[in-house]
């Protein structure tokens, strides 16, 4: 089911070619069509430990610091330490045998290729596959630097890439459950008098970390309550309500009806400052447009957030923001 007749025709042609070229042998069905070299190049991006798949390019720590500050730090912290619940990408060396090991690029990852490959294909979160190879080299160099693996003069490129050995390169063994566990646990199970006594050593209710049940979500909901639930996506960066502080995003108490960029002590992006200078007020219309696609609305904004596509959801979030703003108190 092709979108245009031309594409359909091409497919038929390809199939014909494949058959003519003997592409379909007796035990194949002759389905599919040959993948073009350009198509394979577009999707075959993975990079292997030996450097296979790396494109040409280079980037140094200093450049990487700039890219990281602009495109990664909102979530991963200025030095890769992680903001709130967002993952840390630096630190944790020497903790792997501790009770709660801190597993990061520096403390845990066995291969540099994994870092390059993952950042290249999957980060920044919400805008994957937008970094140039040079930026990826630079950011990888900066993350290595943040983990004390290279010094600040370092520049990473396709040639010196395989010269870097990650600290935990030898930290892995291939699954040995068959040898270390299975034989032991294949014994005939005990059926009676298996232990003398049984005592309770731990209770989940003592910790009390289980989410409260809210059967209410199924019923028609109060808009503000819905907005409050949706605000959980914002919470990783924003606080709201009494005593709210700036986190990686400015505090949002009183935001509806307030001038943009007006929170003391928060380092806004140039883009937001410019808009604020132009008199941007966060009324409901502006918020709705901003939250649809923050970085379309404010090109260059530091708010790395994909946006809320559902208009009803935006309405609910704004209703919730309003309930924490002066005019919202009259609800």
């Amino acid at each position: 089911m092709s979108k245009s007749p031309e594409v359909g025709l091409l497919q038929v042609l390809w199939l014909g070619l494949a058959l003519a070229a003997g592409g379909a042998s007796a035990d194949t069905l002759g389905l599919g069509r040959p993948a073009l070299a350009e198509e394979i190049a577009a999707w075959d991006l993975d990079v292997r430990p030996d450097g296979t798949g790396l494109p040409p390019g280079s980037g140094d720590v200093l450049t990487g610091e700039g890219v990281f500050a602009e495109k990664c730090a909102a979530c991963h912290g200025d030095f890769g330490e992680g903001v709130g619940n967002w993952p840390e990408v630096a630190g944790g060396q020497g903790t792997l045998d501790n009770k709660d090991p801190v597993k990061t690029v520096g403390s845990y990852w066995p291969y540099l290729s994994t870092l390059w490959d993952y950042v290249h294909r999957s980060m920044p979160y919400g805008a994957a596959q937008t970094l140039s190879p040079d930026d990826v080299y630079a950011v990888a160099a900066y993350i290595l630097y943040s983990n004390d693996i290279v010094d600040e003069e370092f520049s990473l490129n396709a040639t010196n890439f395989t010269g870097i050995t990650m600290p935990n390169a030898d930290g892995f063994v291939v699954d040995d459950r068959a040898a270390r566990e299975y034989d032991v646990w294949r014994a005939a199970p005990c059926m009676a008098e298996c232990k003398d006594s049984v005592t309770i050593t731990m209770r989940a209710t003592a910790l009390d970390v289980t989410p409260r049940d809210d059967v209410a979500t199924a019923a028609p909901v109060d808009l503000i309550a819905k907005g409050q639930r949706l605000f959980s996506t914002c919470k990783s960066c924003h606080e709201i309500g009494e005593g709210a502080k700036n986190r990686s995003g400015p505090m949002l108490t009183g935001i509806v009806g307030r001038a943009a960029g007006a929170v003391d002590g928060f380092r806004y992006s140039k883009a937001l400052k410019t808009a604020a200078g132009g008199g941007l007020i966060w009324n409901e219309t502006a918020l709705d447009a901003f939250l649809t696609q923050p970085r379309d609305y404010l090109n260059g904004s530091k708010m790395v957030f994909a946006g809320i596509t559902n208009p009803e959801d935006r309405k609910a979030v704004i209703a919730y923001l309003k309930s924490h703003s002066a005019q919202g108190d009259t609800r």
Partner: protein
Amino acid sequence: MSEKRPNGTSRRAFLRGGVAAAGAVAAGPMRAETPDPLITEVQDWASGLGVGVDEVPYGLPIEFEADVRRRNVPWLTADTKSSVNFTPIHALDGTITPQGCGFERHHSGAITLHKDDYRLMVHGLVERPLVFTYADLERFPRENHVYFCECAANSGMEWAGAQLNGAQYTHGMIHNMEYTGVPLRALLNEAGISGDLSDKWIYVEGADAASNGRSIPLAKALDDVLVAFKANGEALRREHGYPVRLVVPGWEGNLWIKWLRRIEVTNAPVESREETSKYTDTLADGTARKWTWVMDAKSVITAPSPQMPIQHGTGPLVITGMAWSGHGRITRVDVSKDGGKTWEIARLDRAGEAKALCRFYLDTTWDGGEMLLQSRAMDETGYVQPTKNQLRAVRGENSVYHNNGIQTWHVATSGEVENVEVT
């Protein structure tokens, strides 16, 4: 919402329904003091009309079942698009998980990908690199199989001890569906593979922004891996990889690539982020196991459980749960009511199927006393589900993954149930 009982009927209706308040704890046969108006009075539904056909062109569960739904643990992750939620296993029975409540795990959100825009590339060490459309896939001979899909991190929060109070949260990163799809072997054959295949791998990758990719030995790919486009008879749901996902029977859920777009035959694993930073099992000494693909035998009692307290008082009680093994068929499940001192053999509802959920029941009598309920699964290889302490003795407490230890539920005399750990 304390008026609501877990099955959605209100407490008032429950009492009015002829179950005398005293009856809830009485052991003997119940009797009604007054006639039950639900029987003696003509009810609206027995007189007027119900809804017509097409009222709901695609049916959803009736409103009284609204609490049977996926739930997440908000404090676990920063963003729901890089997160997980849990199947309401406590409220389900039988073995098939309805798609609408099967757990979700995304790394960059569930994408909306039209069938017409779907492309699957098979390339690498093949004779003919090929691109398939969705329509192409439907022209290969296809098969149907029921398999469980369990996230390697299922029960991962319980390594250091009892944390979350509900089977949904402790064991809900699992679902079990009937898949329709094409054996991956057929697609690889179409592209042509030859020579020494024993040391080859495939790298499989999704179309979403996380570009989630994993390396799998070619031997497994040629064995039972499916390229699936239907589950439980209908198209996959968006959150499960619509239009096409990989099904890797018995192996950890992260390998079951959703929105599958690329299969590369390689001579070595890629060592992607999902097979190094994640899905490796850190042991007590700080080293980690990698390539721990198989999900070992495991079971859990789904009712009674913290979200499913005993509300009917003493007398007949059905204890039920599910068991599964990535090594093959479940052959037996034992249940203990005293924290593992003595065990009874439970009834398997049907003979276990390989790498699929198996439902078990213990039809018993509750005397109103406290219980420490446990279940223990065995599979066709003779593997016996270990206790959590046995696992910790070998692995320590630092692994997030592959916790298949025996679960304990404490049943109080009130019928309330709690997640506990025992000696």
